[in-house]
């Protein structure tokens, strides 16, 4: 099982994501300018400030040559995980519904937050059970998830709301406390908090995030079990 971590100019958490992926499988960096995805089994779009987050977070990155390939990869059912800036890129690329807006508190905020697993049946969360609480660091200034009411309702009904901030932890003002969402098909997942930082109690405040990578490995090696 090999993860590809997509690096843009301005990516910051690509090495963290690489380390997390390597705890459960092989992983290598992919370069934004290359069309080839090097035959990887799953894609991680890491956090950071691709293209400086200028204009809008993720707005420029989504046009990178590698993103064309990622869009095709997703259309084929490949697993794509977007973390923080990666989530923003996936929304900009319309691989995920909604948009991410400036935090309600207007400030970059770096804080350990608690999350609730809403849907434990996605290829990214199968190692959790629904209702589990996770402690994972979040750090961003554009993390307020927004979608129209109709869309939100459809997402809830379709199991696309995968993670929610626990009560009191939604500092960015996301609609319905949404922290992570997937597409209808369930193979593209984005979240603002950083599971790749929560793989070791020592530096992450918990190891709760590693199960996202474990879930992905299981989903790739044993798709039938999903």
């Amino acid at each position, binding site marked *: 099982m090999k993860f590809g971590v997509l690096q843009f100019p301005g990516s910051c958490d690509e090495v963290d994501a690489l380390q997390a992926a390597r705890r459960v499988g092989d992983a290598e960096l992919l370069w934004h300018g290359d069309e080839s995805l090097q035959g990887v089994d799953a894609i991680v779009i890491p956090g950071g400030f691709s293209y400086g987050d200028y*204009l*809008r977070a993720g*707005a*420029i990155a989504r*046009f990178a040559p590698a993103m064309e390939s990622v869009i095709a990869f997703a259309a084929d059912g490949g697993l794509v995980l977007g973390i923080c800036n990666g989530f923003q890129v996936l929304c*900009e690329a319309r691989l995920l519904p*909604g*948009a991410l*807006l*400036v*935090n*309600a*508190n*207007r400030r970059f905020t770096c804080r350990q937050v608690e999350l609730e697993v809403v849907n434990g049946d996605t290829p990214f969360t199968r190692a959790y059970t629904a209702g589990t609480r996770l402690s994972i660091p979040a750090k961003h200034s554009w993390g*307020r998830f*927004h*979608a129209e009411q109709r869309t939100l309702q459809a997402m809830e009904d379709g199991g696309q709301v995968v993670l929610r901030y626990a009560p009191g932890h939604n500092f960015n*003002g996301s609609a319905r406390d949404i922290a992570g969402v997937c597409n209808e098909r369930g193979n593209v997942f984005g979240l603002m908090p950083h599971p790749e930082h929560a793989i070791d109690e020592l530096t992450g405040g918990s190891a709760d995030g590693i199960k996202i990578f474990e879930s992905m490995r299981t989903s790739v090696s044993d798709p039938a079990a999903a």
Partner: protein
Amino acid sequence: MLIRPKAGILDPQGVAVERALPALGFSGVANVNVGRLVELDLEDPEQLQAMCEKLLANPLVEDYEVQLLEESGHAGGNGRGS
């Protein structure tokens, strides 16, 4: 290009400006909205719409308005700062 947050979507920057103004002695201000202004010289104005929709604005959350200026001047305004 003038790019604005869509109506109905919380604009925390606008809210913050609105809240800060009275403390500075300004009153009677309402409906503050903060958006973006993108200015560029373009050979082929036909590209503009595509550029806005693909890149400069996110139609899910933003409205945009295009003002074309012949040559490179600024839109004539009623006032002008330093």
